[in-house]
């Protein structure tokens, strides 16, 4: 069933997320990234950071919290969602200990060949309200009977 366009513009409550040292380590290991700036405070300081920072795509963790709320609100089943495109624009890195707040907005919905294309804007800010990054994502929601359609991720 297509998504009702009246939901466009909906903004979801800011979601808190605290960036922890062990989560940064776990994420860096999962993507196989041995950059010392993720685990070694001295190495991070050499680049001018107060303490360790997270890999840039770590930002997707708080961003996804907002996606979950949006999809729950619109009744979208996770397995039917494919990621079409993604953009991150960074104002500052995600540092360990930062308590971020992520605001999620549904920018647009477009029906394409029986699928719904959702554009979602997420703003990740630190506890002072300063920008950390902006995520722009396009998600494709496949219809319920989609076994004969092309796929992408």
């Amino acid at each position, binding site marked *: 069933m297509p998504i009702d366009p009246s939901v466009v513009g909906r903004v979801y409550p800011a979601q808190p997320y605290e960036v922890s040292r062990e*989560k940064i380590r*776990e*994420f860096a*290991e*999962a*993507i*196989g*990234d041995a*950059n010392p*700036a*993720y685990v070694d405070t001295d190495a991070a300081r050499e*680049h*001018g*950071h107060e303490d360790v*920072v*997270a*890999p*840039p*795509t770590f930002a*997707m*963790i708080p961003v*996804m919290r907002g996606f979950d709320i949006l999809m729950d609100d619109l009744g979208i089943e*996770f*397995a*039917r*969602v*494919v*990621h*079409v*495109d*993604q*953009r*991150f*624009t*960074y104002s*500052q*890195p995600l540092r360990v200990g930062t308590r971020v707040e992520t605001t999620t907005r549904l920018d647009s919905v477009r029906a394409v060949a029986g699928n719904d294309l959702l554009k979602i804007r997420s703003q990740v800010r630190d506890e002072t309200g300063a920008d950390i990054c902006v995520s*722009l994502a396009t998600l494709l929601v*496949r219809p319920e009977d*989609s*076994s*004969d*359609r092309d*796929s*992408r*991720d």
Partner: protein
Amino acid sequence: MTERVSEHLAVGEVVADQTYWVTREHLVRYAGASGDFNPIHWNERVAKSVGLPGVLAHGMLTMALSLRLLTDWLGDPAAVIEYRVRFARPVVVPDDDTGVAVRVAAAVIEVRDDGVVALEITVRVGDQKVLTQARALCRMPGGRPGLAS
């Protein structure tokens, strides 16, 4: 040592090129670390039931690998100020011990006066591009030892 790295870069120059292997184990680890438990990334039965060719790598994992090429080159992960990609084709991860090879390369598109460098990233499985329209903006460190002469 005070020269900018960007002064040594030429448009079209390939600054990094690397192949990463992705196995089912990587997908499970990434699911746990990222919190993205969409079953199409670990459950063949569910993936096929929604019309996919098999278990797929998370688009965000492929994006992370391609960005890692840049952060390895730059040193400072925070030197990346913008990155965007389009997930053009699914990366199917076979149920074996070797997995799938993802080849990533970065080439200079533009060197700006302010030291920001625009790069085009190509991400291929075999001869097919899996990420397209992949572009990064990076702030080049001034006079980083080993890169600047």
